[in-house]
């Protein structure tokens, strides 16, 4: 056991040396900067040694009881037992007061986080619940953004009028990608969706007459709010455009909360259960009477609809869109949020959304190494916690309920 672990340690150390030494060593020209490179390398090796020590100590302890739920599961369980007002209340309060204490830059990052949370929740329906790997998800975000931009600039549609149209267009696009891929699975599906995402971006980039190509569209109105006032004795509606960052933050916060409620409802519904059955075993789901064809289309459509909402808000907030906002990298980030958060887990995705968007901002000073750190965190996470930050625990609550009902029995 110890010998094996030491062998692993040596291999990892060599691996680390190959990656880190040249990357950190040759930063300012061709001269090797040993000090800096070996400092980081040393930290890495120290972590590995620490890991080894922990493992050795653990191996002397009695083996863990497999029937006992793991620590995050227990934490999740504990959280569900606390009345919601004590867990959700402070969270909402924190979110509500955030713009009052934060500066504009922080609020802006907060808005971006919330947009990605919305996207993550939408993609969670497709990937997390239905098990369809979608690598072109950002295309639906683009559809939402461009729908609002074009409707607003060309026809003067307000945000509220354009939003449902954008959502419907997004859902149609979802079905367009969904229909031909109904019989596909896994890697084939991933490639097709990847291609679809790129097609949308390239169309936006090259359809100069409609989308103004790479220059993008600008000058869209912010989301308006209407409120009544009494002027000259008559009732009048005043239009107020949300231009301030705190205003926009509250706006996307409300959208995010609505999406969270919506996804939560879907998750617990009959449809949600059928999606999970499709993810687990499509043939078995079919045999159980789940209409897989249209439920898969529905998953694509719902996911695309949520992305469209986020996209429309994004375009309205920035008053500017261009095709380069919708690169493949964005799809990857959204997918990472879903996987990191724990596939199918709503709280996990919310936390992961904040971590993956906010942490790179915090480490902005590291510049080039930002993405390296991002990759390292993702890799480490997938090795040590493949089920995600907070594994989906909805099932457990259902058991409790059912057992209680069973124990009560017929009266």
């Amino acid at each position, binding site marked *: 056991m110890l010998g094996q672990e030491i062998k692993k340690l040596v291999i990892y150390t060599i691996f680390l040396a190959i990656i880190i030494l040249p990357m950190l060593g040759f930063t300012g020209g061709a001269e090797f900067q040993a000090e800096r490179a070996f400092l980081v390398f040393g930290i890495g090796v120290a972590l590995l040694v620490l890991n080894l020590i922990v493992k050795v100590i653990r191996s002397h302890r009695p083996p863990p009881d497999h029937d006992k739920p793991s620590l995050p599961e227990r934490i999740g369980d504990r959280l569900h037992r606390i009345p919601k007002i004590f867990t959700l209340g402070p969270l909402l309060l924190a979110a509500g007061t955030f713009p009052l204490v934060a500066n504009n830059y922080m609020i802006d990052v907060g808005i971006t986080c919330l947009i990605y949370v919305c996207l993550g929740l939408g993609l969670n329906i497709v990937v997390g619940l239905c098990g369809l790997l979608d690598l072109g998800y950002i295309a639906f975000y683009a559809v939402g953004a461009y729908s609002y931009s074009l409707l607003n600039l060309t026809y003067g549609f307000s945000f509220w009028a354009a939003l449902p149209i954008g959502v419907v267009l997004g859902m149609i696009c979802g079905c367009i990608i969904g229909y031909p891929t109904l019989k596909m699975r896994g890697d084939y599906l991933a490639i097709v969706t990847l291609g679809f995402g790129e097609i949308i971006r390239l169309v936006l980039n090259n359809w100069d007459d409609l989308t103004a190509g790479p220059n993008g569209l600008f000058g869209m109105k912010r989301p308006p709010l209407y409120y009544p006032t009494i002027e000259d004795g008559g009732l009048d509606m005043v239009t107020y455009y949300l231009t301030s960052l705190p205003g926009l933050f509250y706006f996307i916060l409300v959208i995010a909360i609505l999406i969270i409620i919506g996804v939560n409802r879907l998750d617990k519904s*009959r449809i949600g*259960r*059928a999606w*999970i*059955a499709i993810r*687990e*075993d499509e*043939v*078995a*789901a*079919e*045999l*159980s*009477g*789940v*209409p*897989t*064809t249209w439920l898969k289309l529905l998953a694509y459509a719902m996911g695309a609809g949520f992305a469209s909402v986020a996209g429309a808000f994004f375009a309205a907030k920035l008053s500017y869109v261009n095709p380069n906002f919708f690169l493949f990298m964005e799809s990857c980030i959204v997918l990472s949020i879903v996987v990191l958060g724990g596939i199918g887990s709503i709280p996990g995705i919310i936390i992961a959304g904040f971590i993956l968007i906010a942490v790179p901002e915090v480490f902005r000073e590291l510049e080039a190494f930002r993405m390296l750190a991002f990759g390292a965190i993702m890799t480490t996470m997938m090795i040590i916690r493949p089920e995600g930050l907070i594994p989906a625990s909805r*099932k457990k609550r*259902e*058991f409790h309920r*059912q*057992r209680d009902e069973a124990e009560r029995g017929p009266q």
Partner: protein
Amino acid sequence: MNQDYGDNILTLEDVHTYYENIHALKGITCTVPKGSIVCLIGANGAGKTTTLLTISGVERARRGRILFEGQNIETLPPEKIAALGIAQSPEGRQIFSRMSVMENLEMGAYLRKDKEGIQQDMEWVFSLFPVLKDRYRQKGGTLSGGEQQMLAIGRALMQQPKLLLLDEPSLGLAPKIIERIFETIQEINKNGMTIFLVEQNAHMALTTSDIGYVMETGRIVLEDDASALLENKEVQKAYLGE
């Protein structure tokens, strides 16, 4: 109901199924009388599973007719066929591995709305397979092979079917557990359910069944009473290893 099919709950007439260009079923004709246990035996790759999947509508018959209670079902989608009363326990114990035992059984009752009936059937499944009751909170994937097979059968029973299709219930199981499962199959049948069984374990299948069909490379080559097939020299040589 068509008079000709009065006693047969299921009738296949010259059914042909293809996978792309591979001719998997080359004209299957067979009948399943109401209330009986019928088995389809044959070697690996003979087309037994394809036959069941074609009945369930997961695979499409390119030619031929499938009649369930006198009604043509070969063009219906799987969920409609399931709703008519055909349930299949798929091969290789395809259970929902990250769902609990309870949720797996609930998925079987996906098309049903009668809460009390579902509860009753769940109790019935638990009485048939008591081990499932002990493990009802456990995830399907953590069950042993035999337990997974029981869960797959239980899930199909939760559909409250008129016809139960079982695909290789003995696959990869220890002889003792196979015996248990076949005893339960007979018990289910005594409750009035018609069972169509596909098996490689010819001995077990034929001793349990009323009627047997022998399948070879997409065709049915023999059909008889199960007891007669057990005595049949060819069958004994090819499938019973005697």
